[in-house]
Structure formats: structure tokens, C-alpha cells
């Protein structure tokens, strides 16, 4: 058969020569290999100080986006919850009252929007399902906790702040997403 790579070796069951059976030369060879690695460049990334760059397709903690005027984009259509294979999303819808136009972009909004981070498998289907570009997965990591309750993230933690400088940048996600 044609070898698939240049690294394949034919196994021969030949008896070892005396030199090979001595084993000590092989040990010296092995010691030399490990000793060389002593001076190699270290691959360690010193985590809290240096963070590894995430790839554009990295799917971490969700964010609920606001539009340019600061109104929440989500219209509580529930498509994300339906799409979610882990059934991690819980939504309660409510109707926008007059005078709340600055808060919610559509007439219907999510009064409650919860994602259970312990259920979520970070597949990103919610982001794909959303017709309003409201929910995105970001390059942030869900913080650890001792309490289960802490992993149910409500709107107060998911919705991004109004201030433009505190907005969560998801432009990298558009790289492979449809238009905004």
C-alpha cells in the first residue's frame, strides 16, 4: 500500500544487536534529547498577566446587545430559546409601555431573560437564530463559583451597559455573520 505520510515505518521483528541490547547508549541518547529541551523556548503562557488571543470563532459568555441609541435589541421572539439544544434559555415577554421607547427597541421586549450557564454548551445557535442581532457569544469566560445559583445569568448581567465606551465589542463575530 502506498504510505499515507513520510513518517510511516515498517515494523520488523528483528532481534536487537548487542549494542542495542546494551541499552546504555540508548539511555545516553535519550538523556541528550531531554537535555536539549532544557534550553528550548518555553511554551507556557503566564495566564493572569498574559492572555492568549482568542480566535474569532471563540464562543464564550453571552451578551445581550443594545442598539446605537441604547435601547435593548431583543424583542422576546423566543427563537433563541427554541434553537437552544440545551434548553438553557428562559424568556418572559412583556409589552412596551408608551414612553419606554428609549429602553426597548421593539413593542415587545424580554422582561426576563435567563441563561443557565451550567446547561449551556456554547454552541452559538442562539446567536445564529436571533433575527434582531440581540444575543452574541463573546470571548469572555464564565466565572467560576461554588453556588449553582450564580450560574443562572439574568438580564442584569447579560445586557451590556448603555455607555458607549462600556459596550461589549462583538464586531469580530460579524466576520462570519450576516449583515448587522
Amino acid at each position: 500500500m502506498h504510505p499515507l505520510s513520510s513518517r510511516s515505518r515498517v515494523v520488523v521483528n528483528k532481534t536487537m544487536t548487542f549494542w542495542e541490547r546494551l541499552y546504555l547508549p540508548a539511555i545516553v541518547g535519550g538523556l541528550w534529547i531531554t537535555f536539549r529541551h532544557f534550553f528550548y523556548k518555553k511554551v507556557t503562557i503566564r495566564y493572569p498577566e498574559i492572555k492568549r488571543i482568542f480566535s474569532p470563532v471563540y464562543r464564550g459568555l453571552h451578551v445581550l446587545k443594545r442598539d446605537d441609541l441604547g435601547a435593548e435589541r431583543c424583542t422576546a421572539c423566543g427563537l433563541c430559546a427554541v434553537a437552544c439544544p440545551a434548553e438553557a434559555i428562559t424568556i418572559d415577554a412583556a409589552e412596551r409601555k408608551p414612553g419606554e421607547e428609549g429602553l426597548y427597541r421593539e413593542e415587545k421586549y424580554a422582561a426576563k431573560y435567563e441563561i443557565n450557564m451550567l446547561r449551556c454548551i456554547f454552541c452559538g445557535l442562539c446567536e445564529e437564530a436571533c433575527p434582531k442581532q440581540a444575543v452574541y457569544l463573546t470571548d469572555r469566560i464564565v466565572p467560576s463559583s461554588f453556588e449553582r445559583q450564580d450560574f443562572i445569568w439574568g438580564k442584569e448581567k447579560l445586557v451590556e451597559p448603555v455607555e458607549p465606551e462600556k459596550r461589549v465589542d462583538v464586531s469580530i463575530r460579524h466576520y462570519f455573520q450576516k449583515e448587522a
Partner: protein
Amino acid sequence: MLFWIEKISLVVLVFCVTLVIAMYATLAERKFAAFFQDRIGPDRAGPFGLLQPLADGIKFFFKEEFIPANADRFLFVLGPCLSMIAACMTTAVIPWGHDIVIFGQTMALQIADLNVGVLYLAGVVSLGVYGIMIGGWASNNKYSVLSAIRASSQMISYELAMGLALIALVMHTGSLSLREIVQAQHGGHWNVFFQPLGFLLFLICSFAEANRVPFDLAECETELVGGYHTEYSSMKLGFYLFAEYINMFIASAVMSALYFGGYHFPGLYHIGLSDNSAALVGVGVFFLKIAAFMFFFIWIRWTLPRFRYDQLMRLGWKILLPLAIANMIFTGFLSLLLG
């Protein structure tokens, strides 16, 4: 009276030095392991991670003290203690340096100059296996017992070759006292040049006696869970792990003393130091040699895979033992011819 003060202070000093070295050997092991694997290793506790052994020790003390329900409580506690004691006892006969003179008193840098030092060494080293045996037996766990059996049969197999290598050495120097063996090596007449095969055998057997890779079959995780200390936790486990590092230190010290001239180094008497400072330099040199051997122990650990059990036995009985006997006969023959 003065004699006792001198001896007791020396005992305390040697004990502390041994413990500190064993502590930092754990750090060195982790650091070097990291370097061999292109990593950085622990460096968060203190500058360069120098407080890491301390942190590890504190952690051990705060771990839950657990004794299995069906374990023999007395033996269970005795096991690690015995390991530790046997490991520390060997330091008694190692000559750390030349005599030094303080206030007109000559002080030997050796706790006890036994005239059968080599014999004492071999005896105490073989005691070490009792700690493992008792611990493994008392745990009432099949893996522990299997591991203990492995450890003891390994010790017995390798002690034979080790003893025979030592006999050849003793035939060469004509003394059983470690001090005299070291004294006889001054001026670069290191025993390793006269007993290269003996040294190689002794080196291999030291690895087996110290339960280090590639002979650490007693704690082979893939087959035996944790080996003889599967059921141990807290500082009792710490004692077992610590005893291994002390054994490594002792084995390095013994090899340096027996085969590499101990506290001698070429040119020691030509650089014109006073006797006391020459002795201290000698101690430093001795510790350098020990450090080199300990590095070698670590280096080997991160290079070689573990032997299979039948390979281990084959190596011990069919290769090392005949070689040791041949070496002994050859040495005897030579000394008869030349002496």
C-alpha cells in the same frame, strides 16, 4: 560532655540540612521537570517559586487525616514513620568533610565513624522497605499490598547486586569505614576510575533502592492506582513522598563519597588554604557533587519510561547480579596480582 554537645549539634544540623535539601529537591524536581518539557514550572510562591515547598508542606498538614475503617491503625501510622526514620538514619555514617578545629577542639564532620560503615549503610537502606511493606499491608487494600510485594522483591533483587558492588569496592580500598574510603581517594584517586563497572552497578541499584524511575514499579499509577500509599493522605502521605527525596539525597551522598572522592577535589591542597577553610571548601565540593547526582536522578526520571516488571527482574537477576559477581572476582584477581 563537650563530646555530646558536639555530636548532638552535628546530628541536629545534619538532620535540618537533610530536611531542607529534601524539601528543595521537590521544588527542583518540579522545576527541572518543567524545563525538560518546555514549561516554566512553579514560580508563583515567593521569588522564583522558592516558597513552593513550604506551601506544599502547609497544604499537606491541612489535608484531611484519613485512616480506612479496616486498616490496622498502629501499623498504618508506623509505616510512614519507619520510612522516614530509615531514610534519615543513613546520614549518620556519611563523612561530610575533613575534621575542623574549633577553639582547639578537633571536630569530626561525621556523626559516627563506624568501622563497619558500609555494612551499616547496606543494613539501614534495606530497612527502608519495611516502611513500604508495613504501610502497604496495613492499608488493607489490594493495590497497596501488591505494590508492597513489588517493592520488597525489587529491593531484595537489587540489594544483592548492590552489596556485591560494594564488596568489590571494599576489596579495592581494604576498609569498611566510609571515612577511610573517602580518605583513600584524595588527590584524584577516585574510586570510579578503579571501579567503573562497580559504580555503574551501584548507580543502577541506587535508583532501584530509592524507588525512582525507571524502577518505581511500587507506585506505578497505571497498574496500582497510587501504589503502597493509595490509602494515605495528609502528612502521612507527605512522609512517604519526603522519604523518597531523602533517599535520593542519601543515595547521591553515598555515591559521591564512595566513588567520587567525597569532599576531595583535585588541587585541594595546592591552593594554600588554612586547614579549616579547606575543610569547609571540601564540604561545599561534596554538596556540589551531591547536587550533580540529584540532578542526574531527576534527569533520568524525565527521560526514561518505567520498566515492565519482568524486565526489572530480568535486569536484576540475569544481568546485574552476574556482572557484579564478575566484577568482584575480577577485582579480587587484580588485587591479588598487584598487591
